[in-house]
């Protein structure tokens, strides 16, 4: 399964985990800090994943002067 990470943009090939929540745990990413976009659609943490999926993990944290 392909995973797209941002800041900087890069791609990983990872063994397909059973669902989105497990993918984030495997990558040690705090769920509150990202959106998961599976095949161009937002995915909840219980959503099941398949071998051909392309999953973007998009950070949501911004932190300069506001």
């Amino acid at each position, binding site marked *: 399964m392909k995973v797209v990470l941002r*800041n900087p943009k890069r791609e990983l090939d990872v063994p397909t985990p059973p669902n989105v929540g497990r993918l984030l745990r495997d990558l040690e990413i705090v769920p*509150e800090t990202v959106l998961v976009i599976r095949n161009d659609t937002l995915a909840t943490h219980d959503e099941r994943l398949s071998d051909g999926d392309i999953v973007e993990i998009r950070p*949501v944290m911004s932190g300069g002067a506001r």
Partner: protein
Amino acid sequence: MKCGRCRAPAVIDVRRHNAGYCRDCFVRHCGEQVRRAVEQFDMIRPGERVLVAVSGGKDSLGLWQLLRDLGYDAEGLYLGLGIGAYSEESAAFARAFASERALKLHEVDLASEYGFDVENGARVARRAPCSACGLSKRHLFNDVAIRNGYDVLATGHNLDDEAAVLFGNVLRWETEFLGRQHPVLPAAPGFVRKVKPLIRLSEREMAAYCVLSGIDYIVEECPMAAGNRHLGYKTALNEIEERSPGSKAAFVFGFLERAHDRFMDEVDDARADLHPCSVCGAPTPGDTCAFCRMRARAVGEPLALRTGP
């Protein structure tokens, strides 16, 4: 997971509310949270003109859309900070948003109109880049709002921003800053009213709102913000939130309900001692405001030779 409101398949889960939402119910939820914040804190009154400070990011563009959808007369302001390709790309997102919706976008460019950029200003003022950036934004947002007759300046500060700032202010017991930390800063001579209508929405909710509403925004983070203290506080708070969902909201709203008033005297004292800057006329406790001092150092001009762009 099903949408907690309509039982359609959910596209986003929000642990703080222990709920999942489908697209339509989530977009409605975001509108409801903004309306509730505006009403709870009396941010915008009927007929008032609102200037939204937009950066090209998810919070400010999402805020602009939400305010328009709620029926407010909201126009935008983009400030070019001269941060290389990042500024060019963020400006393109702000312009595209305004153009696609036929909305008015004011633009101010720090380098061409004031003769310096954030990096240069930070170096000469011996400030961190985020500090020089924040100073420039506070000064110029207020200046444009006053000069163009807006009643309210709205910024995209969300729940995570407010929790991180509160965390930092409490760690150092910055009592004057604690007195200022409120979703509304009332208007005063030389100051437009400033409001934060996203205080009831997290940054994850705002990112989801933009994705689900078809709003394109700059995903990349400002290169100058990497490793700053504010991001460190957010990381710490997100670890707490992960173990105890709702902690950030409880921290911020508990402060506003039970502690904020205790620090208000410090703000009143600070505002009572202001007079016009000798260069630009903005309220300042000294002869010359911090923005004009930074600008004069950055461009190598003596003070008081300039009256604005």
